[in-house]
């Protein structure tokens, strides 16, 4: 076999911008694309919002009548931070499905054959889903206020609590992106997410305080990353349900920052790597 001679080209291809500049520009363009999708299919958003709002109403009033809250207090006050976090978790399905649809369509071939940052598609997805989560949080907060939930420690702490919840969403987005890239069929992705997400919400402090669970289950529930966010948010909102004596329960607030950061640090690189490997 002969070797191909690569001629020295005098005419250089268009100069590349700095890598970081490129990543930001391309990520932004992709974010805009994903948000344009949302605007173009409002019915999807309506369904997307209806689930958490229904949870507030159903759990708040059905469970609310018979549920005990440690340290005494309104169940709906206890519930709302849990529903915030739960909605973030269920957003994983939307993220994973969207990414899976993308890579199964011709359009990603075009993206990948263009001189754009490899991370643009996944970063754009993550950013757009964060914007979506922000809208969703707004709707949930309004809904919460309507059913009698409140924050008691000032607007600053309340915003910090919302920040914690959104931080969790970032981590969940990256898990969702990874999932969407690993599962080959977009229709399957949505189905897989539920059995993953459901036990995570059930075995956590979202609906029931872990102290009320059998010992071992309570421990698992306390170590659930979701619980850290919920406990942290309850603390900052000044909602009832302050936790037990275990180390993890006492350190919910820092863990609500640590857990999402750890998960993001694991799944973001995995997702980007997986995306780069689409060329098998």
């Amino acid at each position, binding site marked *: 076999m002969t070797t191909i001679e690569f001629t020295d080209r005098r005419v250089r291809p268009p100069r590349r911008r700095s890598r970081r500049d490129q990543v930001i520009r391309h990520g932004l*363009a992709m974010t805009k694309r994903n948000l344009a999708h949302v605007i*173009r299919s409002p019915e999807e958003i309506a369904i997307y919002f209806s689930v958490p709002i229904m949870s507030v109403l159903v759990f708040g009033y059905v469970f609310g009548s018979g549920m005990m809250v440690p340290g005494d207090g309104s169940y709906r006050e206890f519930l709302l931070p849990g529903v915030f976090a739960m909605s973030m978790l269920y957003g994983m399905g939307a993220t994973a499905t969207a990414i899976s649809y993308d890579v199964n369509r011709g359009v990603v071939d075009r993206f990948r054959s*263009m001189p754009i940052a490899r991370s643009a598609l996944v970063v754009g997805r993550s950013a757009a889903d964060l914007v979506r989560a922000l809208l969703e949080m707004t709707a949930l907060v309004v809904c919460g206020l309507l059913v009698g939930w409140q924050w008691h420690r000032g607007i600053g702490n309340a915003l910090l609590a919302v920040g914690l919840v959104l931080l969790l969403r970032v981590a969940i987005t990256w898990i969702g992106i990874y999932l969407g890239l690993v599962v080959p069929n977009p229709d399957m992705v949505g189905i897989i997410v539920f059995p993953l997400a459901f036990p995570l919400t059930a075995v956590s402090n979202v609906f029931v305080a872990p102290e009320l669970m059998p010992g071992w289950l309570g421990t698992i529930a306390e170590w659930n990353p979701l619980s850290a966010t919920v406990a942290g948010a309850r603390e900052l909102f000044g909602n009832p349900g302050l936790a037990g004596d275990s180390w993890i329960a006492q350190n919910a607030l820092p863990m609500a920052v640590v857990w999402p950061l750890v998960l993001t640090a694991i799944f973001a690189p995995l997702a980007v790597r997986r995306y780069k490997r689409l060329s098998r």
Partner: protein
Amino acid sequence: MNEPAIVAEGLRKRYGDTPALDGFDLTVRAGTVHGLLGPNGAGKTTAVRIFATLLRFDSGQVAVAGYDVTRDAETVRRLIALTGQYAAVDEILSGRQNLLLFGQLLGLSRRQARQRADELLEQFELTDVATKSAGQYSGGLRRRLDLAASLIRTPEVLFLDEPTTGLDPRSRNRLWDAVRSIVSSGTTVLLTTQHLDEADQLADRISVMDRGRIVAEGTADELKAVIGGDRIEVVVHDLADLPSAAELVGRIAATEPEIDAELRRISAPVSDRVAALTDVVRALHDSGVVAEDIGLRRPTLDEAFLHLTGRPASDQRANDEREEIPV
């Protein structure tokens, strides 16, 4: 500028146990349209995906626009564009939003991207549907949008992977016109197709591909010459005359002619076309056989394909033909 636009040597790619490319060699001269012709599953799309940096390969070497597709993938991506078999556009966004998105991803400012999108929409006659979702476009419109997206920045090498599959003849002709005008601006085009007439219409050179390798290469005329040049064809008026006419044509062509009784047609390869035609006309006249039609014909690429690979060009071609009448 005479450096080849695409060079592939000894390219191999397997999917599990199935070789998709099996010692594939190709050289495409800059500024030309090169047709990659082959049936379904011959490996055309695999080759294009490798050239477009979308797919890795097991062994061999590939340079596109002078750059190694593995080592300099980023540079290659700056110089190529791909219009795939399945239109590579965002189906939720409108046509205009698609062009804006791709423009911005290519580094155009918002204003430049807008201007370029409008130009392309106009050029490809998409202005009327510019705000509709691309998902609602007809096949022809979508393909045009796809092609427009490939031309936001003039590429040095454009890959067209079966660009007219599923299009009606009118849309196909429009797309062909668009391709011709792209080439006139200096872009090299690699066109894959299962349609022999498409390669014949557009390509300067044609590589015939089968089972992961090139089995023949040349101009359309050269390929036709490979299977023996011109043929003379006689259609007799009366079926009863078929044997005597066949004998007569066989004598002049100095070979056993092919006979199609159903069409009352006799055909045979000839070397000196005009002399053979004259002789046949005279001999038929002398023997009193009435011919309905007499003519000289170059073999079709279909015949060339059959000759080169021992198989018809496409297994479902018979079905295809009914839906998509070649123009």
